[in-house]
């Protein structure tokens, strides 16, 4: 084989290499980085974006996009906090958040699949719509969400591992299984690969297209519950801009925006890359003005390295 990196190509190890490189550099630059404490810390910070990224992966695999996840996160968090305030059971409050997310996602999916509107426009509109709904419901104020049971979701631990990290790992494993071992996942790939061929093969493409947005919404709802529980309050502005980070995680992870190729393993790596860059720049105490520029540069370089190893046509 001419290219010594052939193996890496085959197993799409580019993003992983990028991640390891960043970790290596940070370990050399600061002794605060390579510690169990910091790893758990990063893992917890990353979990929200990873959850959104997993849902986003489903959507992007079909060739779609979901810009509304940040707004769904805020809306479901607000309604969970609202239910808590009304004296509802903590577990029920979490379910409320998930349900709200599911409904919002299903609305997205219906508009995209049945209304045949470009996903970008449809979810751009619902992003504004759901944010508006959040503002109306909260009247622009944070809603307090203090309840011991509820706060364990975002702030608790199972053994030494923060609960959100455990939840994220479970969701990730489930998603991985669905995508690589179930007919459902295979059909999602098929729709992204060639929607017309998928339809001709008897796949009800509209149904699956609705479902991927439902999943994305559901996970955004779950993320909303976790964030609310972690902050002890639901913020009306929570999650704004999160869609871009989630999409970045997916794409840095090697999933094609055209759909049909990729997966959640890459997304997890992508989310870790973004999270670790943020964490590292903070640890290195890089001046705040330089942080953004440096972050942009690192992402560029990481993706460029990855692409240089990609198969040439």
């Amino acid at each position, binding site marked *: 084989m001419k290219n010594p990196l052939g193996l890496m190509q085959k197993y799409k190890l580019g993003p992983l290499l990028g991640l390891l490189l960043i970790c290596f550099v940070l370990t050399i630059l*600061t002794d605060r980085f390579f510690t169990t404490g910091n790893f758990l*810390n990063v893992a917890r910070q990353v979990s929200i974006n990873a959850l959104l990224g997993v849902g986003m992966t489903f959507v992007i695999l079909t060739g779609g996009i979901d810009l509304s996840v940040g707004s769904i996160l805020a809306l479901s968090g607000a309604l969970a906090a609202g239910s808590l305030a009304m004296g509802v059971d903590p577990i029920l409050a979490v379910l409320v958040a998930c349900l709200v997310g599911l409904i919002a996602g299903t609305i997205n999916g219906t508009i995209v699949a049945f209304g045949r509107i470009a996903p970008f426009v449809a979810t751009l509109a619902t992003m504004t719509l759901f944010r508006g709904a959040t503002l*109306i419901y909260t009247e*622009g104020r944070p809603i307090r969400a203090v309840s011991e049971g509820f706060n364990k979701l975002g702030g608790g631990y199972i053994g030494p591992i923060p609960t959100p990290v455990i939840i994220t790992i479970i969701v990730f494993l489930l998603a991985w299984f669905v995508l690589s071992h179930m007919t459902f996942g295979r059909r999602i790939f098929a729709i992204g690969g060639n929607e017309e061929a998928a339809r001709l093969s008897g796949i009800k493409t509209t149904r699956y297209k609705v479902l991927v947005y439902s999943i994305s919404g559901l996970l955004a709802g779950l993320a909303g519950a976790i964030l609310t529980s972690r902050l002890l309050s639901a913020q009306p502005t929570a999650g704004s801009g999160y869609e871009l980070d989630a999409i970045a995680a997916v794409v840095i992870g090697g999933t094609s925006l055209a759909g049909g190729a990729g997966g959640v393993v890459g997304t997890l790596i992508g989310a870790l890359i973004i999270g670790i860059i*943020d964490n590292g720049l903070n*640890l290195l105490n890089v001046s705040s003005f330089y942080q953004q520029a440096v972050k942009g540069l690192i992402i560029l370089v990481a993706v460029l390295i990855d692409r240089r190893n990609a198969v040439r046509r």
Partner: protein
Amino acid sequence: GGSKDPQAEAPKGDEKQLTVGIALSTLNNPFFVDMKDGAQAAADKIGAKLIVMDAQDDASKQVSQVEDLIQQKVDVILLNPTDSDGLVTAVADANKANIPVITLDRSVNGGTVVSHIASDNVAGGKLAAEFIVKQLEGKGSVVELEGIAGTSAARDRGQGFHEVIDVQADIKVVAKQPADFDRSKGMSVMENILQSQPEINAVFAHNDEMALGALQAIEAAKKQILIVGFDGGDDAVKAVNDGKMAATVAQQPKLIGELGIQFAEKVANGENVEANIPADLMLVVKE
């Protein structure tokens, strides 16, 4: 929502109803919601109509909104500028249309403004710094969580804070990072700082939202650190009383909004008003 305006449908009586436009930098922050509520209550009381605009922290969006207020021919504009320079044009436009402007909370650097109602953010930053110096007895490591880069609130509070802190020989600002006036960013930035700085004695956050986020991070790390916020919002005052936060520099957003309407009425009636009306700042500590 609470923003429903009963006066909107009321028939215009024999005398002309006063219409005031209030252009706020953002409503995604309880501080400004309070300001709006204060103004609304005052307007309801005197039977004035209040038109509320939310610029979502975007200067050019706010310019557009002021233009739209001018198109509606309101009697007075209450302006809470997103930025001091950026809104000069809008003020000039209002001047051209002969609509008087009163600024709230933040000032503008040009055009004719009949009156400015605000608390002094530089003074507030100093107040916070002096409190921290006293509590630390002049010695220790301090973290500063900054507001959105480029907003005057972040600028002024930082300036006031550093004027006091930087002359202290034994107090060091070991980390200074922006968290965009946002609670969740406040938390994650603080988490990272806690990883890199073994020894932290106090945190000054440019507003309460970031302070409350930092509090979450600090509690999770099981550390004891003095936290000082800014605004005096409900959640923060409760945290102070629970002993979780050390203090918050309280502004009086409701009062600022209320004064805005009172002065708008005076201006509309042709009365002369003072150019500068200060709203009191006050350090809230545990009773």
